[in-house]
């Protein structure tokens, strides 16, 4: 059964120095509040795993939390580069393990399925197998065809954001569901941050439900996906994603922004008003 606890307590239980940690959310439902709490708790030496590092890992990399990054697309979507990520790679101060989206999605599926590897039609003819040791050929035992295998991703800690949970810790999320279910099921310890705790999870079309007994911790974190979004509660703060380019281009500007907006805040503090999504929370389906 999931324990419903404050965010700072949950992060302290779930994330330790040196862990492999996956904070997922495909554009939608990215757990920024949890990332900020990990930064505030001063975690380091982490292997960060995420299909799209996005601003959330740009921040964690820039703050020195990461030893290694496992990823498949490291840009600021529709804007350009992730400067803290890019600088770290170009200065060779961050080890990387690089996949395609299909490879990482299947690696999470294998993790959630208790299998050591996944098979896909992917990577063939590309230069990725030459630079990533976790991409290997595998032969179909029936047809002899050669395909590609990737090992399961089984993070020490898996963290996602969701719309809501009930008091027993059953979690409900909808909209773009990404690999949310897979990362929770693939991880040794899991934490789901939610917009709100409700009495009853009214069914919603397209919703994924994670039963309480499959989740370790649930923490309320209203607005906790900002500047990403939570369908039905907020919209993506595209202006913030654009503004991030200038904030993050230079390490000192970046550090000063992080000091003012992350380090000095308590866990669960909503984002600064200027950067909040225009839509008010609560208009859920």
């Amino acid at each position: 059964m999931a324990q419903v606890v404050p965010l700072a307590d949950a992060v302290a239980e779930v994330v330790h120095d040196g862990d492999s940690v996956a904070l997922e959310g495909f554009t939608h439902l990215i757990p920024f509040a949890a990332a900020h709490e990990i930064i505030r708790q001063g975690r380091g030496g982490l292997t960060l795993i995420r299909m799209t590092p996005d601003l959330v890992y740009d921040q964690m990399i820039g703050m020195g939390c990461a030893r290694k990054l496992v990823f498949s697309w490291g840009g600021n979507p529709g804007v350009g580069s992730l400067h803290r990520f890019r600088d770290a790679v170009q200065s060779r101060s961050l080890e990387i393990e690089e996949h395609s989206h299909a490879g990482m999605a299947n690696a999470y599926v294998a993790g959630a399925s208790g299998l050591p590897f996944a098979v896909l039609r992917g990577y063939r003819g590309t230069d990725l197998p030459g630079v990533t040791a976790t991409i290997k050929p595998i032969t179909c035992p029936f047809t002899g065809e050669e395909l590609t295998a990737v090992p399961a991703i089984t993070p020490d800690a898996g963290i996602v954001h969701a719309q809501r949970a009930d008091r027993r810790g059953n979690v409900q999320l909808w909209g773009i569901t990404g690999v949310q279910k897979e990362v929770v099921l693939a991880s040794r310890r899991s934490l789901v941050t939610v917009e709100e705790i409700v009495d009853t999870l009214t069914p919603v079309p397209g919703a994924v439900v994670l039963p309480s007994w499959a989740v370790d911790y649930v923490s309320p974190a209203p607005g906790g996906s900002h500047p990403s979004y939570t369908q039905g509660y907020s919209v993506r703060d595209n202006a913030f994603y654009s503004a991030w380019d200038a904030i993050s281009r230079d390490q000192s500007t970046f550090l000063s922004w992080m000091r003012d907006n992350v380090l000095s805040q308590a866990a669960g503090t909503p984002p600064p008003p200027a950067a909040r999504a225009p839509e008010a929370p609560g208009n859920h389906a």
Partner: protein
Amino acid sequence: MSWTADEMMTIAAARRLHDGLSCFVGIGLPSTAANLARRTHAPGLTLIYESGTIGAKPDHLPLSIGDGILAETADTVVSVPEIFNYWLQPGRIDVGFLGAAQIDRFGNINTTAIGDYADPKVRLPGAGGAPEIAASCGEVIVIVRQSRRAFVDRVDFVTSVGFGRAAGDRARLGLRGHGPRTVITDLGILEPDPGTEELRLTHLHPGTTLAQAQEATAWPLTAAPTLQRTEPPTPDELQALRALT
């Protein structure tokens, strides 16, 4: 009405999308072109984004491939593993729409790194969905501004396979789709030579010259015997595009 080279490029790309097709859409210019096609001559075009949104009908251009408007307007939203495994991988999707940082004479695409991978001059975002889009879609349309920096003899890193290093490489690799049959730039359109599978110029946009295109290409670019002039944008096309962006 006058237009920019980017507008011509986007409109030329949109024209290649026929009604009734399914299209796997990358973000940026591909998304603009695909949405333009849906607003003009191809209202029955099915837009598919790697975020799992199938049949998205956004009323404004999304900034990311996962904006809420895509999920809200989709026929169905599936998980990310499902979009890659059940929809892209089996070759169900007709057209893949990709961008590129570098593209070479065989249509191979680099979006990973400029220079040495281990010690890159410029680190690019990486693969995302592109390698499997390039492998599995019925065909691929690449949209990229033409320059000697982008149109190279051989990409520094093969992120997504075009025609490999020689005719027949796709079949040898077991890639199911027909590859980058169309590369649309701000100067014209390149298509593979049916024999060698090397990209050559088949269309020049209004006001551009073969010399200009050759100047913007780092390999010795040849023109197809049937080199044609792209029809200029119609007022309707321009209006629809400008309403969108």
